[in-house]
């Protein structure tokens, strides 16, 4: 990593922070596009592993960001990525929360929430697509994706059990 690369990494996550209106997972497709497709810093496997590790750990899903940073450039990479994704939104949340609290029933804020909701859903489906695309030629993995969608959407089974089941299926060599 050159110092220009470090700045690019930091700047990318700064920008992602401001775009993450639907949560950190909503910007996963864009992080993938940049760090995997454009920069080639890590590959699909490492990116999927970062998401999987974050989902398997306790705490907010946003922690996939430092794991991506770790895969790119070790511990310093993890800290730079985390600082990048936190600083802009944190600053804004602290300065704007009181402002927003008073205006949440106003036309502008309601229009924002109403207009962004469908886009957020589209971004979540995109994140799923980006993670599924590398599995296109692996029928068992695709089946695992499909079964997870069904169980997660139709039952109240906790995600940690599904992740554990996925790990077991994979460790057995079926995926």
């Amino acid at each position, binding site marked *: 990593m050159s110092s220009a690369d470090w700045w690019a990494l930091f700047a990318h996550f700064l920008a992602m922070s401001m775009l993450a*209106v639907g*949560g950190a*997972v909503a910007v996963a*497709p*864009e992080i993938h*596009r940049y760090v995997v*497709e454009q920069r080639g810093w890590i590959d699909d*496997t490492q990116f*999927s592993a*970062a*998401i*999987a*590790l974050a*989902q398997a*750990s306790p*705490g907010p*899903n946003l*922690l996939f960001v430092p*794991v991506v940073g*770790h*895969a790119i450039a070790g511990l310093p990479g993890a800290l730079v990525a*985390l600082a990048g994704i936190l600083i*802009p*939104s*944190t600053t*804004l*949340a*602290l300065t704007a*929360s009181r402002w*927003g609290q008073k205006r949440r029933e106003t036309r502008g804020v309601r229009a*924002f*929430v*109403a207009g962004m*909701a*469908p*886009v*957020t*859903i*589209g971004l*979540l*489906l*995109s*994140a*799923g*697509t*980006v*993670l599924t695309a590398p*599995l296109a030629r692996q029928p068992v*993995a695709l089946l*695992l*994706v499909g079964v*997870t*969608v069904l169980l*997660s959407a139709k039952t109240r089974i*906790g*995600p940690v059990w599904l992740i554990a089941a*996925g790990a077991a299926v*994979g*460790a057995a*060599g079926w995926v």
Partner: protein
Amino acid sequence: MSAGAPGAADEPGGGACISDAESPPSPRAPHEVLVAFNALALKGFGGVLPVAQHELVDKRRWLTHEQFLETLSVGQVLPGPNIVNMALMIGDRFFGWRGAMAALAGLLLAPLAIVLALAMLYARFGTEPVAAGAIRGMGAVAAGLIFAMGVKLAPTLRKNPLPIALCAGAALATWGIVGFLRVPMAWAVLGLGGAMVAIGWLRLGRAP
């Protein structure tokens, strides 16, 4: 109204017995905020929001259900992860920026250490066939979980003030553009999102 609150909608109203007249207990010092957020972060597998509601409203009673919902709806409008924004606002409510930082540290530090330890194990042993297989399986499930988040939020579009067909169209267009064409997300968010917010602005102005 709810842009990203799957947890808030299907959570039972467990705190209904708590009377509003009673003043809720408050944390006495920032470190209590840190401890509380640390505890709820470590309990939150695959989503911290439902745990946060249980811990902060039902158990510790620092917030009423109404205050929790208020904080959530503001946290959603702001960029950044909802739970991080909520933690900042709740910490800020009690102890200003020191409380906000305590909440953020409590929410992130221990889970960060855990996930980075896992990442290091993965970097070390990720090429072992069994570990690589397990991670591939977990990755497929992770993809499914994220799809399911989108699927579970889709019915909330029926309550959206914008027509359902328009909402569905915008969601599908975003999916196609970002998920399949892999167009930079800023274009989709600023273009489609901007257009949708503008339409929302016009419609909300007409209908009372």
